[in-house]
């Protein structure tokens, strides 16, 4: 299967998805590099994949199962976390409104 190069339109979509606003020279450089990298990724598509039983998971030996017990432990400085926010007031994070006015989810 032949990988298609990333078209300028498709590129605009991923720039949007990544929340970037790029200068023309940056766009040109990035798009070119992406397409070069895609040529390399092309290799993977050409591999005849027998139903590979090989596990892709890292083997993490865990002696016994140690799931986290459901016990509360307070973090000692929650206020400090809020105060690291560039915009915060009275213990709340502040953000501007959405352009569309309502939330996205």
């Amino acid at each position, binding site marked *: *299967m032949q990988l298609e190069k*990333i078209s300028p339109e*498709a*590129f605009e*979509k*991923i*720039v949007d*998805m*990544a*929340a*970037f*606003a*790029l200068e023309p020279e*940056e766009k040109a*450089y*990035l798009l070119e*590099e*992406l397409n*070069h*990298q895609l*040529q*390399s*990724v*092309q*290799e*993977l*598509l050409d*591999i005849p*994949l027998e139903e*590979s039983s*090989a*596990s*892709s998971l*890292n*083997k*993490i*030996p*865990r*002696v*016994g199962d*140690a799931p*986290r017990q459901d016990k509360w432990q307070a973090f000692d*400085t929650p206020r*400090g*976390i809020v105060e*690291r*926010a*560039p*915009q915060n007031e009275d213990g709340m*994070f502040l*953000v*501007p*409104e*959405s*352009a569309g006015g309502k939330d996205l989810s």
Partner: protein
Amino acid sequence: MSYTQLSAREIAQKVQAGELKACDMLEASLAQIRAVDGDFGSLDGQLTDPETDNKVHAFISLTENMAHAQAQAVEDKVAKGEDAGLLAGVPVSIKDIFALENTVTTAASRMLHNYRAPYTATAVQKLMDAGALIVGKVNLDEFTFGSSNESSAYQPASNNPWNTAYVPGGSSGGSAASVAAEEAVLSLGTDTGGSIRQPAAFCGVVGMKPSYGRVSRYGLIAFASSLDCPGPLARNVEDAALMLQVMAGADERDESSATLPVPNYLEVLQQDVKGMRIGLSSDYTGIAYPNHTTGEFEVIPVQDEIKQATLDAAEQLARQGAEIIENVPMPHTRYGIPVYFVVSRIEAASNLNRMDGVKYGYTVADARDLQDLYTRTRTEGFGLQPKLRILMGAYLSATSKKVNYYQLASQVRGMIRQDFELAFDPKGAYQLDALLTPTTPTTAFKRAEIFGDSVLMQYADQMTVSVNHAGLPAITVPAGLDKMNLPIGIQFIANHFQEETILRAAYAYEQTTLDAAWRKVRPMALQEVK
């Protein structure tokens, strides 16, 4: 001889014995930094002129106050006759990608230029608990994306102490440079595709990537979650083993950390390599690289001196009693980089989604609306290399794709892992204990020589990246200098959680080189400092 030339083990012993004061050790380290480092990397810093710049520039910031307090605490313990720790009084530099409470962790990016973590990474905490002195944060490729340290937003970025017109490698460039330049005795780096081993090889120091899960990742700002490994850089194998001893072990804050018991690495070092089966593979004598002008794949052979050093090392080990097995096939090595492009980019793009200007770090103060906040923060906060990775990750993971790239790459990753499993299988055709390969295809390259060509830069990691895909342990040790007096590194790879095996092999090899002529050559940046 300056204290900064002592090994970590010697320092800890002398400090514990009261022969060396931790505060004096710290002073020596700081003095060395002042003598050789030059300007630290900063956001408004400039690139230097390779023709005239002979400084190392390994550091982004010092943590002097913290280090003084730690040194004092060590001295107090020693005075009371208490155990001051395995690394008592040893100066350590930390790649600026680890959270350390009360310091700024920049990730070498404008995005986190003012980020003070509210907690400390487990690996760093363990070093501190063992009496280490944290002297400062060293430079890296921005968010660990790179193999030369050049993409750092904090300029001047590190130079290679052996020749300051050359790169130290990356992404743990500052780590390797600070150790090679005797500014720190040990450094904590990270290895995702070779980011400890490649710069360690370029800078003529020992660098180790432990098995995935051997050292906790909690507090390491993630690049690729399924590949990242914190690890030690040091000037000899024993010191690397010592540092690993301190850091290894399960962490309840990291589900991917192994609960396997930690052996005594220092003990095994003394064991010889008689009967150890060490393999060589022709798949590691060149890199298969896509030429985008011709569209063809070429195989570029490994630099001759490096190939020779690898064979010489095999010979030395054979003389020590090891069995050398040649032509071990590792056929899927050539897919290491394409798989890396997919897995690491998708994971990296995802991990960086949290950088949005709301909770911490860089932000734009006059955003029109939420979308503007996100877009401008991320555009201005991230450098070009992070942008490239994020875009690639976004593209490859977009749902509209006909192919599920992550799944495909994961499958091929399994095939790479299988190459190693077959090689190490105790009932298989090769029954290896370790694989011996060059660490890098070339010695250090000149600054600006490759930067910008993202594919060629990435392919420089082909000898190291498969190890990350398989989650195995590997170590690089200095094996000589090329005709430019640039360091050569060779790599030992072993099966999961067989750090002891590669430490033994590396140590045994290292011992045979102690009197070598190349060991007497000093890095260029240190030649003025007596």
